């Protein structure tokens, strides 16, 4: 490069930095650049699947500060943020309503796999998501703790979906392979309506049911033996959820306590997640001050012998009414940037496989991290959009049924205004009623409300609707939810313990058993003196019921609502039952949070 060229680069870069100031403020934010100020630049918001947010944030920051962000139309400022692929797909079809809660309307959409674009276009009846160029790859694998993989014959014996399904359906579970101490086979699988791993595993499940590796049809999905096969696979599921990180974080947390082998036997994840886990960073995002710690029991990636599907991470510039021609040009500049060999090398650093053949596959995609760069040997064909949509419909019918107790805080603080006209309780009631539609008729759902001085046998809670199939009690649930009003204190520990115990007592091994616990406060039962003991007893109670080969897991999914909730306690409660905590500190997001919580069922 000539001296003059260097000078030009320096000048343009300095102009770009000045014009696009703001990105440095967010340099440490691993969750994206949603709050970064783009100044006068052309803003390119980018919705990306959660597993690659750290990579895209880094690339966007570098791009925004580079002279590549200077185009004829002006400077470009890219703002990636994390959005589950399936959630974004439905929002695009719906015209992306309520950006305050759902995230800004994206110009670029990068779901984990191209199949989502087909689903969007099929549902919308028009091409809102044109074909996008893949910019990195990672195959779907079945992650197993190494001892369990070895019990199945790894690494010498090829393992397929059929082997996993056979074990999942064996009433003896791991005892059939000489390991009764591991209990039944427990499958971790995300909800295919939201997560690409969940979608891809479900596709593979139907292929395994038909014996095909391509050409799956809607007629195949309707065959009785295929329905029975899929229903049996789903019966082994621990719970669902919108992102695989929930499973990986729970696995990692139980690994610390030495109980990971009884939390889950296998989880359908992307290869990249196995690498992250084994490097001690299970969710792929290192928060400030977080130090990676290698797990006691590493995971290994099983590449199913029947073939698998790839997440190809397409870079899709949307063709929707909210995307301007100027933004499309700006988005194309960023797309060109991420395809460059030096940036494709960065893709590899984050555990993905580069899509540029000039960047050879190397560490960390290596045996040392539980993965095999020479795999997979075969692929399953991505079904047509019509079949993909039908798979999602079929799954909704065949998924594992749930028994869920909704526990709703109606303490006095829920009466605080969240908007100009609605209280926190108003918004929570509306969200809870909407969420009821996500259950299927056979799911059993009940409602408790809690506060202090409620009268009755136990003044701390009231059973508003007993747990029963929602096909029968749906109207009662809706009426009771809407009838609630704010009252007194927040006996958080006591009611968590009692709701958990009630669900444990009526535990149904054929279903996902769970409590969904929403509160906006801290424990406040009128007796501060016993709070520490109460908390310790509660966590011990939850852990003892959730761990071990013969455990009867009742998951307690917690929602911290508003900015006064005791987030630390609610996280601990969720973690003690290997469930998940959800943050609705902004009450405007409660609808989305409820949707995410119910995706576990």
């Amino acid at each position, binding site marked *: 490069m000539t001296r003059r060229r260097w000078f030009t680069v320096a000048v343009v870069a300095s102009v770009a930095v000045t014009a696009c100031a703001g990105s440095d403020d967010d340099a440490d934010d691993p969750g994206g650049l949603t709050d970064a100020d783009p100044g006068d630049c052309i803003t390119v918001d980018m919705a990306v699947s959660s597993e690659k947010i750290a990579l895209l944030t880094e690339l966007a920051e570098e791009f925004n500060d580079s002279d590549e962000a200077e185009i004829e139309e002006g400077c470009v400022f890219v703002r990636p943020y994390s959005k589950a692929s399936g959630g974004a797909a439905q929002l695009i079809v719906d015209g992306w309503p309520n950006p305050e809660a759902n995230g800004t309307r994206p110009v670029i959409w990068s779901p984990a796999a191209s199949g989502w674009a087909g689903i969007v276009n099929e549902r919308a009846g028009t091409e809102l998501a044109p074909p996008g160029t893949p910019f990195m790859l990672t*195959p779907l694998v079945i992650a197993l703790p190494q001892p369990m993989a070895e019990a199945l014959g790894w690494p010498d014996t090829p393992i397929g979906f059929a082997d996993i399904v056979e074990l999942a359906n064996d009433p003896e579970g791991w005892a059939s392979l000489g390991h009764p101490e591991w209990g039944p086979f427990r499958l971790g699988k995300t909800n295919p309506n939201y997560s690409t791993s969940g979608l891809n595993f479900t596709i593979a499940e139907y292929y395994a049911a038909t014996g095909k590796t391509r050409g799956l049809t809607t007629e195949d999905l309707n065959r009785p033996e295929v329905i029975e096969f899929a229903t049996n696979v789903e019966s082994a599921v621990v719970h669902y959820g919108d992102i695989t990180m929930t499973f990986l974080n729970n696995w990692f947390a139980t690994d610390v306590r030495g109980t990971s082998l009884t939390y889950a036997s296998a989880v359908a994840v992307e290869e990249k997640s196995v690498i992250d886990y084994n490097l001690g960073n299970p969710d792929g995002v290192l928060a400030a001050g977080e130090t990676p710690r290698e797990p006691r029991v590493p995971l290994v990636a099983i590449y199913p012998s029947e073939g698998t599907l790839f997440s190809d991470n397409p870079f899709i510039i949307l063709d929707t009414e909210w995307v301007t021609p100027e933004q499309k040009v700006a988005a194309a500049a960023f797309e060109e940037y991420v395809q460059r060999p030096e940036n494709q090398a960065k893709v590899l650093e984050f555990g993905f*496989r580069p899509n540029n*053949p*000039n960047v*050879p596959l190397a560490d960390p995609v290596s045996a040392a991290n539980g993965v095999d760069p020479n795999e*997979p*040997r075969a692929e399953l064909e991505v079904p047509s959009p019509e079949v993909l949509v039908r798979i999602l419909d079929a799954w909704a019918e065949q998924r594992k049924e749930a028994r869920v107790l909704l526990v709703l805080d109606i303490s006095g603080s829920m009466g605080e205004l969240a908007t100009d006209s609605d209280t926190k309780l108003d918004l929570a009631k509306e969200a809870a009623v909407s969420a009821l539609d996500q259950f299927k008729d056979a799911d059993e759902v009940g409602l408790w409300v809690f506060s202090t001085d409620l009268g009755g046998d136990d003044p701390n809670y009231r059973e508003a609707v007993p747990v029963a199939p929602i096909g029968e009690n749906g109207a009662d649930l809706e009426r009771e939810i809407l009838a609630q009003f704010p009252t007194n204190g927040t006996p958080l520990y006591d009611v968590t313990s009692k709701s958990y115990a009630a669900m444990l007592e009526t535990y149904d091994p054929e279903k996902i058993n769970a409590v969904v616990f929403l509160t906006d406060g801290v424990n406040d039962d009128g007796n501060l003196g016993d709070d520490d003991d109460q908390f310790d007893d509660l966590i011990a109670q939850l852990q003892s019921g959730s761990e071990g080969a013969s455990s009867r897991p009742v998951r307690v999914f917690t929602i911290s609502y508003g900015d006064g909730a005791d987030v630390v306690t609610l996280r601990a409660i969720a973690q003690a039952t290997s469930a998940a905590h959800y943050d609705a500190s902004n009450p405007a997001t409660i609808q989305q949070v409820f949707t995410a919580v119910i995706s576990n069922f």
Partner: protein
Amino acid sequence: MILKRLGALALAVILIGGAWIIRDRVIDDNGGSSDDDPPRADREIVCVSDLGEACNAVAEALEIEIEIEDAATTLDALAALEDPSEAPIWITIDPFPAMVDNLREIGRLPALAHTETHVASSPIALVALVDRASALTAACGNPLNWQCVGDAAGSSWEEIGGDASWRDVRPAFAPIDSAIGLLGVADAVSGYFGSRQITTNDLAFTRWASDLAEAVLTSSRPTVSAIATIQTRSSALDIAVGAKAELSATAVDRFALQYADPMIRADVVVVVPEGASTPSGLTDELAQFLEARGWDSPVTEPNPLPQASEMFAIREAWKGFL
């Protein structure tokens, strides 16, 4: 003394004049310029997507704009262009310039006068993992018999002596609207006939090509290059057809290259419309980049490609099969 001074003056004039000439003719031609301004194009420059990486690199090095688009898109635009003075400089692959001429002749539009500079060349090859390539050679010979390859496509590898676990033989080409995509299919077609003389309305050929296309549909269809796809995702397809140079130097241990007879080439050309001139250094930069990426120097021997008019027939027939 006066004569001596006049002689010195004349020498000085010659030296200064010579310096100016050298500066104008030599330095500028090598990419520099008297004002240090970047070289400028007096026409739009368009480049086929197959060479997108090379063209982007050249654009960055010379600080010029180069538009990247599929060969078929530029072909259609040039075929219908009313005003020849609007024709862009086109970085493309043979025989696309001849195809433009052919289409304009059919459309009774005047030919676009131009010059062509050959920049680089690479034979069309079939790339497969080493074990699959061995099985293919054993079954279909060396050079490969495309009729045999087409017959094997879609059937089990085991049937041609491969391993049953490899399942079906899945060939793949780049998209047909790309230059190398069309050349790949043309390679298969001329290979079927064994020469550049082809007949696309031959019934047996139509059946064979239709079966090949159906087998291609079972591969994950590459968005740009089949050879790039097989390198990054070898489980997606078995036989990638494209330019030999598309196989990265780092991948030669895993993959084998095979060729068909006749061996056709992808010849990179810079097409400059009459009255236009290329930015200085463009051809050299492009040639250097392509050489570094494994392209060969331009080959002067005739390229045994089907005629330009037959290339259209191949394109349309292939689109119909897909």
